[in-house]
């Protein structure tokens, strides 16, 4: 079955603390994974994708096929990082179908 699991509904940290938002997936094919973010009163938007291996706004995510994980990390959280974060798996078939996790709300306190 194709599934994305984000075990934490809420992650609450203080400014400057490290952040790790967990994402695990279940997929028999070759996975393509993404992180989308929704800031307050803004649209859902792409944060990063695993194939790019890039750092966006200080966030990185590494695909670990052995552990079937794609955790999102940032060494020093900022208040403006507070948002809803969704991990998404693109399934093969050429139709750009995304399976989203349930989302994790990140709250960064001053």
């Amino acid at each position, binding site marked *: 079955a194709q599934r994305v699991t984000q075990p934490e509904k809420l992650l609450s940290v203080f400014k400057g603390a490290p952040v790790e938002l967990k994402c695990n997936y279940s997929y028999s094919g070759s996975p393509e994974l993404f992180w989308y973010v929704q800031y307050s009163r803004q*649209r*859902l*938007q*792409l944060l990063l*994708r695993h194939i790019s291996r890039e750092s966006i706004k200080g966030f990185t995510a590494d695909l670990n096929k052995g552990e079937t994980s794609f955790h999102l990390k940032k060494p020093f959280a900022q208040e403006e990082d507070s948002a*809803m974060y*969704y991990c998404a798996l*693109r399934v093969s078939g050429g*139709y*750009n*179908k*995304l*399976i*989203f996790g*349930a*989302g994790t709300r990140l709250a960064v306190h001053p």
Partner: protein
Amino acid sequence: DTAVSQTPKYLVTQMGNDKSIKCEQNLGHDTMYWYKQDSKKFLKIMFSYNNKELIINETVPNRFSPKSPDKAHLNLHINSLELGDSAVYFCASSAPDRALDEQYFGPGTRLTVT
């Protein structure tokens, strides 16, 4: 403004009614999507159209019918609304090139069925 737009933003209606939500994108994308976000913020794909052709059709009650008059528009019509249809519905679009496969989301339409 270059974006994905949805109308209306809010929709409050009674059970049994029929309603439509409209979506338009001016990004020149070929593919459009409808997602449902439930009260627990869980986001699930419902439909996708590529150049007016239905390509993704998830397990959705047939009271929901998408319609794409052209590749810039994808409307969602819902018949005989039920309480469980209350949710936020998001439209999205993406370009056909896999290198440009980011999905661009609309602002959402909050549907409340009473």
